[in-house]
């Protein structure tokens, strides 16, 4: 099987799984307990916090462990809410775990603005600039789009913010970026940054939220006061340790080089077919967004899985619901959206596998195309 849906989830490291087992079955103590064994665990968790900060190139700030990026995004957004006439700005390209939180804010009566996407997948910076003012409370954008791989220029947004809305918080959903591309959080001057372990070979059900200045954040989950009261509930120790393992393992530069190589190779193979269209995205080499003339993306996805090649449809999958919010925001036509697929790499792939996948994709597409046209 050739797995090309790494933006959906990734395979866990064997070493991480072993570590997970160790902290589930041997060093299973509750880090909030007072005895020596438990205190050791607490220290180990703090080491993982340091690892995350190091990967983010952060010199200060805190890390809160969560149950994954959805929870991190909810904490970042809902925890930043303030009463009064504040305004909240969201990217239309956000993952449902930011977009639907924004919708909920709107439902609760907050003033929420959605920023359109450009055709290249990035947010419309000029729209953000025009929306920023001294009432802006929060700007939330995705670092790398999970649908298209588009990379937003966070530095640019951050600078705009400093100039026009210095009191506003900047939240970045870094799920598709962390451990994949170089991040310098200090330079970017980001306040809140979300990540999820299972997107970089860690376990599912664990993530973190980086917080530059914890003071303004308010908890949304109440209980035993773990994570300094910002996320009550006993920490998922095995998950966090296995996430730490994955962070330690990740060689961002090497990963990036491999992804770029695979990206280039596959694009060159697919582009030879005049009916296959690679979307023109300014983005991450880990993700290729493309569409296939005349063939339903989902149908092709199933045909490919029958041949052992796993690709993603992104959130275009519920075919009876109209379209795909992200691609629509970029101005794509209905037929392009219906025929859309997402291919995403990891560093475990080989060139040979990618080449094989390329051949199968072209072959299966043409088989289907002949049958349906």
């Amino acid at each position: 099987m050739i797995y090309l849906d790494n933006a959906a989830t990734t395979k866990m490291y064997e070493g991480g799984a072993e570590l997970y087992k160790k902290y589930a079955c041997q060093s299973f103590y509750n880090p909030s307990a007072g005895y020596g064994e438990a205190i050791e665990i607490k220290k180990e968790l703090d080491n993982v916090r340091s690892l995350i900060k190091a990967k983010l190139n952060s010199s200060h700030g805190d890390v809160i462990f969560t149950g994954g990026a959805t929870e991190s995004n909810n904490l970042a957004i809902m925890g930043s809410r303030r009463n009064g006439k504040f305004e909240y700005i969201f990217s239309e390209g956000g993952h449902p775990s930011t977009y639907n939180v924004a919708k909920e804010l709107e439902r609760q009566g907050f003033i929420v603005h959605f920023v359109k996407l450009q055709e290249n997948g990035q947010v419309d910076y000029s729209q953000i600039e025009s929306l920023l003012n001294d009432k802006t409370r929060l700007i939330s954008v995705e670092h790398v789009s999970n649908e298209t791989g588009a990379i937003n220029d966070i530095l640019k947004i951050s600078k705009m913010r400093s100039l026009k809305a210095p009191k506003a918080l900047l939240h970045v959903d870094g799920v598709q970026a962390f451990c994949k591309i170089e991040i310098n959080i200090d330079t970017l001057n980001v306040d809140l940054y979300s990540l999820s372990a299972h997107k970089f070979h860690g376990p599912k059900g664990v993530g973190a939220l980086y917080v530059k200045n914890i003071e303004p954040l308010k908890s949304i989950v109440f209980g035993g006061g773990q994570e300094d009261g910002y996320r009550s509930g006993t920490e998922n120790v095995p998950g966090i340790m296995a996430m730490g393992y994955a962070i330690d393992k990740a060689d961002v530069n090497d990963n990036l080089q491999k992804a770029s190589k695979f990206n280039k190779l596959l694009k060159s193979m697919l582009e030879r077919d005049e009916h296959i269209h690679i979307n023109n995205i300014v983005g991450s080499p880990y993700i290729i967004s493309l569409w296939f003339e005349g063939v339903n993306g989902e149908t092709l996805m199933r045909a490919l899985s029958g041949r052992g090649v796993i690709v993603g449809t992104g959130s275009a999958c519920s075919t009876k619901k109209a379209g795909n919010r992200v691609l629509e925001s970029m101005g794509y036509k209905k037929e392009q959206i219906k025929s859309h697929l997402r291919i995403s790499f990891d560093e475990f792939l080989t060139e040979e596998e990618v080449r094989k996948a390329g051949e199968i994709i072209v072959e299966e597409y043409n088989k289907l195309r002949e049958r349906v046209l």
Partner: protein
Amino acid sequence: MKVILLRFGPLYLKGNNRYVFENMLISNIKKKLCDENFKFEKTFGRYVVSNYEKSREDAIVQKLKQVFGLYSLSVAEEVVASVDAIKNEIEKNELDGKSFKVIVKRADKNFPVPSMEFAKELGGLLLDKNPNASVDLYNPMVEVNVDIRMNGKAYIFNETIKCQGGLPLGSAGKAMLLLSGGIDSPVAGYLMGKRGLELEALHFYSYPYTSELAKEKVITLAKELTPYLGKIDLHVVSFTKVQEAIHMNCSSEYMITLMRRIMMRVAERLCEKYSLGAIVTGESLGQVASQTMNSMTVTGGVVNNKPIFRPCIALDKEDIIEVAKDIGTYKTSVLPYEDCCTVFLPKNPVIKPTIEKCEKEEKRLNIEALVEECLAGEEIIEIK
């Protein structure tokens, strides 16, 4: 002793066949309760389920409510059919501040006191015991029922719970239900089951055009029908080749019509293979283009030797949805997976197809080979 008193419908209309129907109903009841401990007694005009675990009472009642052929049931106290025993039991009714009515039925005419007289007597007794209660014959808050049966027992109960009605499952034979994954076809299966038809089901899928999830959905639907229909053999047939062949060779407005004609042929062939007596569909007149009178004429036209039952034919969509919600298939039916009818969907499906035009279109296909191919790839999933 607490018992469940079961009443069945007009099986007595069935003349000499009555015992066949009754035995089928009893067998279905016992099958339905096979996981429970209980005693079953058949008396004239009633069945009695007793000796069950008290904690299972609600579960048993729920199960019995799904048995076709039962009309109503009551959880009752069983006592010896004597004036004293009945009075003793009746007195336990606490009616303080409530209005009530006593209804006595006497199947056993040897019982010494006539019904009306006994009801009055029991009412008087209850009024004595509950000075704040009152009698209301038209709209009482509590009904006190006394059913005196031929088996020397009397049954005292307050509530009559409506059951499915209909005829015992299997008493009308066995048929093939076309199960698409939509709202209507499971309802059609339920309605025909209620008329005594046991069912097998047939589903067409079009991998890779339709998702595995669509097939899983139909399996779930079949499973949701089993409380009513018992075990169902689900026949799953790949329709990909047929759809591609029609798409490539025939005019697109006839896509759905031609598809359905082939589905019907496959269904009839499977009926012959498995000795099934009819085809059941969820069609409702005029609901969509393929369910007009003309459409049904041409799709039904290929079936030579089996009747096609369409129990939803005269129901509005809202009525069908109501039944689907009642029987518990609605939530699954509205899951958004494509079924094979939504693939290659023409923009303008023909509303008044004709047999002549269909036959002309079909000349461009090798119908027999396509039907054979469908049959060859048949997969049977036993749903319990």
